[in-house]
């Protein structure tokens, strides 16, 4: 296409607006591994001191970073397994099977998909108290899985919609039941969808902050997001940002790795958007 206005003013504006992000990201990496004289920005030496939380106790009432990491992993893993398991059948039902009130359920799905779930947190808090699941990891997993579910079903239904009808018709023609057709013929076709939901809900669980903070504030169910947030909010004026950044890097490492590996797939799903 014809070059009929110059690129550099656009680049300049982009650069100015991106500058805070670039600075933050650069110093996230730099500050985690270096020391510097207070009042300057230039590093004066390389150190691993900020990562001491990995091998010593920080004496902040938590039960150690590895326990917290294990919690976070369990939380993210079981949430994503639950979401995937439930969406894979529900998505198929909504996409392919004829049953009463199907239109109603589809409409309900759209409404749920758009509904801002964070408004329900107070009621969910009280429900978990009544169920006795308050302050347990299981409680948070169940709630997180439930809130991710409309998104999972929506994506899964989309993947089922793209599978050609002919595959199913051929299976039914050959005498297989609908269940067999789904299990043997359709499921292999939607494996990318399964992967996408698995990865996305894992990342979403790994990053989740509000639910663990409200529903499981105790030490036993602490996850990395609440671990870091507690540090950040209790720090006061004596905030040790080098430590925060080291913990943050440790926390974000799986996210960054997964993102780099599955970049293209995720870009499409994030486009659907669950964050403001």
């Amino acid at each position, binding site marked *: 296409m014809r070059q009929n206005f110059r690129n550099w003013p656009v680049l300049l504006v*982009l650069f100015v607006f991106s500058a805070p992000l670039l600075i933050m990201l650069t110093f*996230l990496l730099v500050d985690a591994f270096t020391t510097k004289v207070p009042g300057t920005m230039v590093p004066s030496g390389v150190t691993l001191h900020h990562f001491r939380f990995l091998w010593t106790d920080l004496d902040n009432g938590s039960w150690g970073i590895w326990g917290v990491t294990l919690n976070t992993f369990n939380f993210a893993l079981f949430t994503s397994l639950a979401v995937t398991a439930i969406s894979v*059948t529900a998505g198929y039902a909504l996409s392919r099977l004829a049953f009463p009130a199907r239109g109603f359920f*589809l409409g309900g799905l759209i409404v749920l998909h758009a509904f*801002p779930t964070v408004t329900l947190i*107070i009621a969910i808090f009280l429900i978990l108290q009544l169920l006795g699941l308050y302050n347990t990891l299981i409680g948070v997993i169940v709630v997180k899985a439930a809130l991710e579910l409309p998104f999972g079903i929506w994506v899964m239904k989309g993947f089922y919609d793209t599978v050609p009808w002919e595959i199913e018709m051929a299976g039914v023609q050959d005498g297989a039941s609908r269940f067999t057709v789904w299990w043997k013929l359709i499921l292999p076709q939607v494996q990318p969808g399964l992967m996408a939901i698995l990865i996305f809900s894992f990342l979403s669980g790994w990053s989740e902050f509000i639910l663990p903070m409200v529903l499981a504030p105790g030490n036993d169910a602490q996850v990395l997001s609440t671990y870091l947030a507690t540090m950040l909010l209790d720090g006061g004026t004596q905030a040790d940002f080098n430590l925060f950044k080291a913990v943050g890097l440790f926390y974000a490492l799986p996210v960054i790795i997964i993102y780099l590996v599955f970049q293209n797939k995720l870009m499409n799903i994030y486009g659907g958007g669950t964050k403001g």
Partner: protein
Amino acid sequence: MQRSSWLGLAFLSPALIVVLLFFMVPVVLTGFFAFTNMSTATGVKGGEYVLNASGLRALADAGLPAKTLDQIEGAGYRVDARGLEALAADFGQPIADEFGKLHTGEVFAKRRDVERALKGLRSNPIRKTRDRKAAAELFKRSMMNERFPTLPAFEAALEEAKIPEADRPLITKVAYTGWVWTAENFGFLFSLESTWQYAKNTGIYVVFTLSFNVLFGLFLAIATFYLPAGQASTFRAIWFLPRILPPVLYIVMWRWFTWDTGFISTVLSGFGVAPKNWMLDTEFHAWTTIVLINGFVGASMGMIVFSSAIRAIPSSMLYASEVDGANRLQQIWHIILPQLRWPILFITSYQTMSLLTSFEYIYLATDGGPGGATEVWALAAFHTALNNYGGNLQYGLGATYALLLVVIGLLASLAYLRLFNFRNLLIKPRIEG
């Protein structure tokens, strides 16, 4: 029903159960809770009946006769198993046995009467007056500070203390420690000046953040569309990062950027500006930071949606416009923007909703400060019900705040049904069983 119907319902049922339990029930319960006075003090599961000093003051203020108050405070001295046990523990089993044999079931109006009865014991009476007084006190039966787990138990106690029938309902009401139904939350909420402040703050927050999101999202999408592929993907990746990084880490970076030991302060101190907290020092700075924090995340969503919409424009249209001599601004104005009408509408409505209800970033960044200047409605609901410094969490009042958001959320989500092309979704399954 056909077999595929059963299969369909069976396939759907796990999702239905979960959705029912964690969407429908919470929506309905938010409505219910809004009509209660639930708080930390009342508990969630119901309560007991207990009268304490403050309850008694409340009763006095409510105009309960002094005589009734006296009856509550001192219901007399009763020789019962509990008192005898205490007596045995303090003064020995023989005394308790003898006293119990002589007086079990008796009620004395005054302590002196009990003391006299104690004095009358034959074996080893309690010699010191002070001890006797203490022993008599063991039999004092008052309704004060005694916990009654059920209503019948409390009513029986009222009956025993001979409290007039007319006064009982009021006493019962004051003594109950559990939650009760009430419609006062709504009136209370709107009588608070801060409520209007929250509404105003929410307005500022949504309008400015949304404008930033949409305008800057548009700018990013169009700019990266025209830039060479390498530069474009670099900027897309940079702007995508806030979206994938965990929110807590994202806020750590912003706090560092604006803190008094952080980036802005350090750089400006080179120019002789005293270090200060650039996020929390003034309301204006707090709002700027909040809008940017949310905007940097929100803009990336706009960027993705708008970018894919722009790529969907047939390139022949753009080529044709160039042949006709249109420059890029004309292209943007006459070709790209009209094509983006629906995506813009989608982003606007979607983000209005999510901005109205989200409080995560504000909580982590300013926590509503300085001095409540950035306390938005959703954050106020959260603070009232789940997280405040006073320690008395008012679930009922918080639910009242949340109810408004739930209702708005429901209405907006229903509107999505209209926005989406619902007919498309309703394509009939082609295999019927």
